[in-house]
């Protein structure tokens, strides 16, 4: 191996890479701007929409209740409902979003309350429709308050204190540090993202440097130079690896910034300012280096595999059709790592892609299982080595290089 020659090839490939508009989009623009836009933009939009839905005074229809004037009077007193006149087509009106919900006061409701028997009040609403749910929730809250008041009145009538209903209180308290909490909640997604972007970042340059070179007719040009095939493959490989890692790094960076901005946004909206920097704190140097080290052999693996497969194609388009199914092969184990209950086990540590995704999730929540990390790093290195060897061998095959 001639390192100088490898460097010459790498430098030239790098020059061409940065001049390619597709590279700029897939490696820099998408990871840097897409995630913040999606995350912050969608969150802000969701907050805005939910806020508006909550502010709306829902139109509610009351069915029955003619013999229960007290409950009707209490309902009418509230200013967060707009009670509309009865119409027998109330079901259609709810479905058509003309009214948000309807409440059915059963016959004899008031007298049942007085003699202690139980009746059922039904609420009709449109499941999955946000404004209808809010309307139904308001009716339910009113009815619960009303029920509680009835109970209190009954207890008072019998000289029993209201505290008899709550002999003790229950309180849940989180004891995990805030960074672990945030790591557990978003760590799976970070792992998924790192794995996926290591691959997508490598995909375009892998195609461009192999099938793209064949299509443009420069493969024969470079093969006529005195550089050895091994040095040529290595120079190309390092560029693909570089693209893969750059995409993943920029994405994680932009995700980190987006999450912390989101947290600040949320905490300033509520009270918990102390947790604001939790994610930012946990994307500290140790986390970043650990994720980078664990992702490195996977990026090598992806780069070599993608180059090998793309080399079989005669054109950019053909290579894309070969590599698109690869995306699914990568997404499935990466998504599996996000499923609740899927934890890193010694057996899973040998499963490529899934293991790296899982270990990133662990690292994000501040857990470092050094033995598992060593197994994952070692096994992925072996897979990466095999893939790189295959890439070298494929570059030696005339039937592949000059496929017509």
């Amino acid at each position, binding site marked *: 191996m001639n390192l100088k*020659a490898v460097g010459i090839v790498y430098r030239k490939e790098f020059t061409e890479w940065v001049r390619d508009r597709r590279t700029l989009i897939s490696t820099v623009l998408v990871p840097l701007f897409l995630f913040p836009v999606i995350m912050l933009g969608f969150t802000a939009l969701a907050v805005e929409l939910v806020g508006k839905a909550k502010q709306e005074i829902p139109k509610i229809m009351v069915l029955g209740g003619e013999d229960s004037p007290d409950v009707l009077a209490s309902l009418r007193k509230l200013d967060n409902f707009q009670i509309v006149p009865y119409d027998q087509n109330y079901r259609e009106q709810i479905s058509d979003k003309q009214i948000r919900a309807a409440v059915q006061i059963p016959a004899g409701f008031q007298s049942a309350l007085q003699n202690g028997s139980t009746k059922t009040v039904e609420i009709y609403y449109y499941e999955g429709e946000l404004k209808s749910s809010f309307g139904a929730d308001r009716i339910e809250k009113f009815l619960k308050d009303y029920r509680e008041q009835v109970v209190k009145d009954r207890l008072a009538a019998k000289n029993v204190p209201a505290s008899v209903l709550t002999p003790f209180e229950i309180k849940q308290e989180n004891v995990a540090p805030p960074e672990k909490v945030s790591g557990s909640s978003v760590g799976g997604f970070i792992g998924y993202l790192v794995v996926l972007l290591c691959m997508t970042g490598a995909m375009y340059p892998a195609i461009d440097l192999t099938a793209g070179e064949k299509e443009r007719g420069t493969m024969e040009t470079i093969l006529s*130079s005195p*550089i050895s095939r091994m040095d040529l493959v290595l120079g190309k490989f390092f560029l693909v690896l570089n693209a893969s890692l750059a995409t993943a790094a920029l994405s994680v960076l932009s995700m980190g910034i987006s999450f912390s901005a989101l947290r600040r946004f949320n905490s300033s909206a509520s009270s918990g300012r102390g947790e604001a920097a939790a994610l930012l704190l946990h994307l500290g140097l140790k986390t970043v280096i650990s994720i980078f080290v664990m992702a490195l052999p996977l990026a090598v693996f992806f780069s070599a595999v993608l180059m090998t497969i793309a080399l079989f194609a005669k054109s950019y388009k053909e290579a894309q059709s070969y590599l698109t199914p690869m995306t699914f092969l990568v997404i499935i184990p990466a998504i599996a790592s996000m499923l609740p209950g899927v934890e890193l086990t010694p057996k899973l540590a040998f499963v490529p892609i899934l293991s790296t995704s899982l270990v990133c999730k662990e690292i994000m929540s501040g857990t470092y299982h050094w033995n598992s990390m060593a197994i994952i790093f070692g096994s992925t290195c072996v897979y990466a080595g095999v893939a790189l060897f295959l890439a070298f061998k494929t570059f030696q095959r005339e039937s592949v290089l000059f496929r017509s």
Partner: protein
Amino acid sequence: MIEARSLSKRFHDKKRGAIRAVENVSFRCAPGQIYGLLGANGAGKTTTLRILATILEPSDGTALVCGHDVVEEPEKVRGKVGFLSTATALYPRLTAQEMVEYFGRLNGLDEPTLKKRVDDIFERLDMNEFRERRCDKLSTGMKQKTSIARTLVHDPPVMIFDEPTLGLDIMTARTITTFIRKCRNNGKTVIFSTHIMSEVEKLCDTIGIIHDGKLLAEGTLGQLRERHGEQDLEEIFVKVVNALQSKAEA
């Protein structure tokens, strides 16, 4: 000096089975001479030249280029060869200068030598006007000049041209043929393939007629005329090829 010794190349095709692209081809080409491989499409010219440029490996036989064996020392051979064909394109996102410099560096030139060599070639080929222009923005003529500069940057003693004028307009093709002639005058060993008879007549010191992977006839233009009793090279070519086909049918 090029010396091909019983070169053979077999390919395997899924539909057609084993294909003998080149069969037992031997010839010599000395410095200061142009050897022309004349043949129809699919005759085995490109495969032969690719073997000499070590882009392909022979199935049998070997060749010596400047004393280096194409099988044993392919990288050394490539360092002595400038290879130009219509299939050797340029990198679209590099400038003409970057393209030539890249190949100079791959050929092991140090930076001061490279700069001197590049300046000299760009001056000689009148390329200074577009040296900073990207290759995808060059005209066909400019691209050909850049390709020539790329093959010359390491000053190779052997030049291999595979149908270098294929698909080019008259003026660009003329640039190439003038360049080939200059290479010979500068003492380089030149081998080139073509199916254009007039090019062979104008340029070649020795002509090899290749058909169906076999070298059927070889000699100077005068020797071929005398041997086959024809003045026109096209007639000679047809006669040689027909003789092979009649032999095969018999």
